[in-house]
C-alpha cells in the first residue's frame, strides 16, 4: 500500500514539475552580412507561463579560435551584428539571481553576399583541338569582395563551388563540358561559353584552333637516373612544314611500373617538365599538345646511398633531461661541447669531445633557472651564451660565460632587460647575441663588453598574435622561425637590404599552412648552387603522453629561396610516424634529429623535388635511446651538428653523443638473405 502511495506521489510531482525553455526571436533567423539585430528572448514553462530571468547573455559559440568573431555583440545596446557568412551558433544564457542557469543554442544563418559580377578569363594564349580550356572565374560580390577561382587549382575552387550553383553551357558542340565542368576543345572554330553563378551570367568567346603541330620531340637531359634525381623534359613542337613552333601549351604526364613487383611506381612531374621518380622502375613520360602526343622512357634505378652509421661515444646525462648543445673548437685547439638541461636545476655542462669516443664532462655552471633550453658559443670559442627559463625571480634573460678555459668556465654577466618572459633560443654572431623574448620577438644585444651587454636592436613580425620559436644567423642574415608566420629573412649586416644589428631589415618571408614552423637552416646546394631555407615543423599531435613515448609529427619543408622575392616550396623530408626537430646541413647532406625517429642522415645532392624520404635518399640512422638514460631506451633526439667529420647529437633522455657515417653499406644479411 505504501509503495503504491509513493508511486502516486512521484507521478503527481512529475506532473507538476515543468520543463523550462528559452524562446527567442533568434530561432531560425537568417541575416545578411553587416546586419544588426536585437535578440529578444524569454523563459517559459512547458505550460507557457513566464519564468523570471534576471539577465540573458548572448555569445557566439567558439569556432577555430577562442573568441568567435562571426557574430559580435554590443552589450550596451543589446544588439548583435553578423560579420561572416555561414551558419553560426549563438548561445543564450538565462541567469537567475539564485545561480540557476538555463542555456539554449540558436543556429543563425548569415547569407553569403550575393554575386554581383562574374568575369571569365582565359589563361591560355591559344586553344587547340584536344586541349582542355582552363577558364578562370573572377567573382565580385555585392560587398565588392573579389575572388579569383581557378577551377584547375581544385583545392581552393572547391570551397567556392560547394557553396554556389555553377552552370556552364556552350553555344555549340565544338567543346564538350563534362559533369565536373571541365571543357574539352573538340573541333576547330568559335564557341561561346556561358557561365551562370547563382543567377549571374557571363560569356566568353573562345577560338579553337586546328592544332598546327604535326610532331613532338620530347627531349630530356637524361634517361637513366636514380631515385630522387630530377630529369628536365622539354618539347620541340614541329609543324607540317618542319618548322619549330615555340611557346606551345604542353601537358606532361607519366605512367610507371616498379621493378619491385610488390611496390607501386611513384613520382612527380611538374608543368614545366621536371620529373622525379621516387621508386625504382620504368617510367613513360608523355607530353601532349592538343591531340598530338609524344613519349619517352626513363629508367629509374635505386639510389643506393645506404651506409652504416655507428654510435662512437656518449656523454651520458641521466639525472635530468638534456636540451640543446653546441660543439666548438676551444682557444687551445681542442674540441669542446656545451649542453643545456630541461625542466631541472638550471645547469649547463661542458665536455671535452676531442676524442669523440671518449666524451668527458669537464665542468658545469648552475644558474637560477629550471630550463637552460639553448646554448651557443662565439665563433672565436671564447664566449658562451645560455638561455634561462623558470628563474625564481621571473627575470630569466641570458647568461654570458667565459669559456676560454672550458675546464674552468666563469659566469661573466646576466642580462635580463626585455627578456623576463623567458628566453627559449639564442644565437651568437659577431659580438651580438640574438635572444628570443617572451616567444614574440627577438632582441639584438651587443657584447663587445661582455660584462655590460647593450641592447642595440629588435625585430618582430609585427602581426597580431605574432609568435617566434627560433633565430639562426648566417652571413649577416637572421632567419627567424615564427610558427604560423613562417620564416623571416632579416638583413642584420649582410648588406642585401641595408640592414645591421641595430637596424634589422626584413627582405623575404615564406609561410605554410600547418603553422608549425619551428626551426630554419639556410643552405646553398653545392651541387646545384640553388639556395634553400629548410623549414622544420614541431608537432606533438596527441600532446603529452605521461605514460610512455610521445608521439611526434611534422617534417622539413625545402623552400627554394634563390629568388628571395618568389620563394617556392619544392620538396619535403617526412619520416612516417616521426616528427622533426633540429637539424644541420653540410656538403649536401642533412643531419636531422627526428625526435622519436632517431638521428637521420639524408642525401641532398642534386636538384631537390618531391618527397625525399620516398626517393630513398636516406643514408642511414641511429636510435639514440640509452639503457641507462633518464628514461631508459627512450629515443628522443633533440638536435644534430656535424663537426670535424662526426655527427654530434643531444638526446632529451641520454645527453650528448657522437656518431659517424661509415663507408660500409649496411649488412642486411640477417634481415633478408635475398637482399643484395
Amino acid at each position, binding site marked *: 500500500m505504501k509503495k503504491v502511495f509513493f508511486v502516486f506521489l512521484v507521478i503527481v510531482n512529475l506532473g507538476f514539475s515543468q520543463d523550462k525553455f528559452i524562446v527567442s526571436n533568434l530561432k531560425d533567423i537568417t541575416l545578411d552580412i553587416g546586419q544588426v539585430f536585437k535578440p529578444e528572448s524569454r523563459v517559459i514553462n512547458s505550460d507557457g507561463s513566464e519564468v523570471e530571468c534576471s539577465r540573458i547573455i548572448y555569445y557566439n559559440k*567558439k569556432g577555430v579560435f*577562442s573568441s568567435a568573431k562571426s557574430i559580435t555583440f554590443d552589450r*550596451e545596446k543589446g544588439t548583435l551584428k553578423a560579420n561572416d557568412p555561414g551558419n553560426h551558433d549563438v*548561445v543564450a544564457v538565462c541567469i537567475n539571481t539564485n*545561480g540557476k542557469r538555463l542555456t539554449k543554442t540558436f543556429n543563425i544563418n548569415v547569407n553569403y553576399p550575393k554575386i554581383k559580377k562574374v568575369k571569365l578569363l582565359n589563361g591560355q594564349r591559344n586553344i587547340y583541338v584536344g586541349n582542355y580550356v582552363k577558364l578562370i572565374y573572377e567573382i565580385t560580390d555585392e560587398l565588392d569582395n573579389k575572388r579569383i577561382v581557378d577551377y584547375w587549382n581544385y583545392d581552393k575552387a572547391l570551397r567556392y563551388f560547394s557553396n554556389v550553383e555553377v552552370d556552364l553551357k556552350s553555344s555549340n558542340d565544338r567543346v564538350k563540358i563534362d559533369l565536373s565542368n571541365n571543357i574539352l576543345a573538340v573541333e576547330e572554330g568559335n564557341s561561346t561559353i556561358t557561365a551562370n553563378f547563382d543567377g549571374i551570367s557571363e560569356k566568353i568567346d573562345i577560338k579553337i584552333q586546328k592544332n598546327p603541330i604535326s610532331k613532338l620531340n620530347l627531349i630530356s637531359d637524361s634517361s637513366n637516373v636514380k631515385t630522387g634525381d630530377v630529369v628536365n623534359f622539354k618539347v620541340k613542337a614541329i609543324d607540317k612544314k618542319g618548322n619549330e613552333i615555340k611557346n606551345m601549351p604542353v601537358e606532361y604526364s607519366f605512367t610507371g611500373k616498379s621493378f619491385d613487383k610488390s611496390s607501386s611506381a611513384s613520382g612527380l612531374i611538374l608543368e614545366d617538365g621536371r620529373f622525379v621518380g621516387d621508386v625504382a622502375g620504368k617510367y613513360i613520360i608523355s607530353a601532349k599538345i592538343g591531340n598530338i602526343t609524344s613519349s619517352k622512357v626513363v629508367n629509374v634505378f635505386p639510389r643506393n646511398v645506404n651506409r652504416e652509421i655507428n654510435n662512437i661515444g656518449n656523454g651520458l646525462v641521466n639525472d635530468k633531461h638534456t636540451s640543446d648543445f653546441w660543439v666548438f673548437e676551444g682557444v687551445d685547439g681542442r674540441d669542446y661541447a656545451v649542453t643545456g638541461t630541461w*625542466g631541472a636545476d638550471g645547469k649547463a655542462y661542458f665536455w671535452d669531445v676531442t676524442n669523440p669516443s671518449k666524451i668527458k664532462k669537464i665542468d658545469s655552471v648552475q644558474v637560477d633557472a*629550471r630550463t637552460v633550453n639553448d646554448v651557443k658559443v662565439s665563433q672565436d670559442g671564447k664566449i658562451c651564451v645560455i638561455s634561462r627559463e*623558470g628563474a625564481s625571480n621571473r627575470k630569466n634573460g641570458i647568461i654570458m660565460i667565459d669559456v676560454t678555459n672550458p675546464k674552468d668556465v666563469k659566469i661573466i654577466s646576466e642580462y635580463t632587460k626585455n627578456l623576463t618572459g623567458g628566453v627559449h633560443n639564442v644565437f651568437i654572431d659577431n659580438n651580438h647575441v640574438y635572444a628570443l623574448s617572451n616567444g614574440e620577438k627577438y632582441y639584438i644585444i651587443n657584447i663587445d663588453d661582455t660584462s655590460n651587454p647593450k641592447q642595440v636592436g629588435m625585430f618582430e613580425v609585427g602581426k597580431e598574435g605574432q609568435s617566434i620559436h627560433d633565430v639562426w644567423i648566417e652571413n649577416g642574415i637572421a632567419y627567424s622561425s615564427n610558427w604560423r608566420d613562417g620564416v623571416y629573412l632579416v638583413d642584420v649586416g649582410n648588406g642585401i637590404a641595408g640592414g645591421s644589428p641595430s637596424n634589422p631589415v626584413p627582405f623575404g618571408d615564406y609561410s605554410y599552412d600547418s603553422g608549425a614552423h619551428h626551426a630554419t637552416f639556410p643552405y646553398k646546394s653545392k651541387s646545384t648552387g640553388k639556395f634553400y631555407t629548410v623549414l622544420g615543423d614541431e608537432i606533438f599531435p596527441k600532446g603529452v603522453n605521461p605514460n610512455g613515448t610521445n608521439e611526434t609529427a611534422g617534417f622539413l619543408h625545402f623552400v627554394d629561396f634563390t629568388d628571395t622575392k618568389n620563394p617556392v616550396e619544392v620538396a619535403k623530408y617526412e619520416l612516417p610516424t616521426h616528427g622533426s626537430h633540429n637539424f644541420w646541413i653540410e656538403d649536401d647532406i642533412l643531419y636531422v634529429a627526428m625526435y622519436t625517429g632517431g638521428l637521420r642522415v639524408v642525401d641532398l645532392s642534386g636538384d631537390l623535388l618531391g618527397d625525399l624520404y620516398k626517393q630513398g635518399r636516406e643514408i642511414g640512422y641511429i636510435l639514440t635511446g640509452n639503457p641507462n638514460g633518464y628514461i631508459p631506451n627512450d629515443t628522443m633526439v633533440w638536435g644534430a651538428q656535424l663537426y670535424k667529420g662526426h655527427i654530434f647529437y643531444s638526446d632529451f633522455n641520454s645527453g650528448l653523443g657522437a656518431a659517424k657515417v661509415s663507408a660500409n653499406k649496411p649488412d642486411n644479411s640477417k634481415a633478408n638473405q635475398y637482399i643484395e
Partner: protein
Amino acid sequence: MNDSYKYLISRFHKNFKILKVLSFFLVHSIANAQNYYLYVASESDDTVSLLRFDGNKIIEEKRIDVGFYPTEIEGPHGITIDPNGKFWYLTLAHGNPYGKIIKYSTKDNIAIDQTTLGLFPASMQVSKITGFIYCVNFNLHGDMKPSSVSVIDAETMTEITKIKTGIMPHGSRISNDGLKQYSVAMMSGELFEIDALNLSVSRKLDLDNHLSIDQSKMNMNDHKMKHSSVKPTWVIPHPKKSLAYVAGNGSNEIIEINLNKWEITKRIKIEKKPYNVEISPNGNIMVATLKGNGKTAIWDLKTGDLIKLIKNSTSVPHGIAISSDSKYAFVSVEGKGGEPGIVDVIDLNKLLLIDKVEVGKQAGGIAFWKKEI
C-alpha cells in the same frame, strides 16, 4: 516492581552508558576522519598535483601531466574549482603566443575541453551566479599596455568577451554573491571591479598613496607610463563584509578597501613583498604570502592584529587555499632551481605549520576542492 523489571531497567542504564561511550567515540572518529582535498599547479614542471590532507598528514594522491608540448614548459599558473566541485580549470601561461584554459573533470582528472585566451592567462574564479570563469590575462612579460579579463562560459568553454582593464592584471576573485569580479593591475596600480552580469568594468580605484610619492621624481608628461609603487598582485573580497584586501607587493602593505564607499580605509604595513592574500570562509582570518622573505602572515580580522608570521618550508611562497571549515591554510611554495615545490599546511587555530608535501617545481596556483568525511 518485580525483579525482572528491575533487571531490565538496570540493563537499559548499563547499555545506555555503553551507547553513550560508543557514540562519543563514533562522533570523535568521524570528526577526525575528515579528508581535505586540493589541487596545486607546478609552473616549471607542467604538472598539477591532487593532494589529500587528513588533519595530520598531507600526501600527494596523484600527479597529472598537463600541456601539449612535451619539450616546452607551458607554465600551468592559475587553477580553480567549479562551485559544483565537478570540474577544475587550469591556465597555461605560455602558448604561441596566447595561453590556454583547460577544463578537467575532478572525477578522473582527464581534460575535457579547452580554449585559447590572451597573453599569460593567470588567476581566475568561477561565479556561482553566472557560471562564467573570469580570468586575468596577466601579460607578465609583454609591453606596458592595458591587458584584459577574459570571460569564459565554463559549459561550452567559449571565451565570451575580453574586458579591458589595466597593465598586468592579476588576482581574479569573485564576490561572495557571485555578482562582482575583482582584479588588480600590477603596473598601473589599480583595482578593477567588473559587473559579472554586464560584463563591463563598473568601478576602478587608484591604489597608489599619492601622499607618499615623491612627485619631483615623476615625469608628469609621461601619462601613459604610470608605474605603480604599490604593484598590487592580489585582491580578495571579504566573504561577509563590504571590504576587500589588496596585496601591495611593491609597497609592502595590505590595503583595505571599503567596497561601499569605494575608498581605501587602511594600509597595513607588512614584511617583504606580500603576493597572494586570502580570507577564511568564516571571515575571521586573513592569510598572505610574503614572497620576499619566505614567510606567511596571518591576521585576526576581528581585531585587525597580525597574529603570526610563519617561516615557510622553502623560499618564494606563492598561493593560498583555505579549507571550507576555515581550519587550515594550504600554502604553495615555489622554491628555486631544481628544488621541488612544496605545499605547507598551516593550522589556523594553533597557528602552526603542521605538515608539508613536495610537489612539482615552482608550485604556484592552488585551489581547495572539498572536505570529505
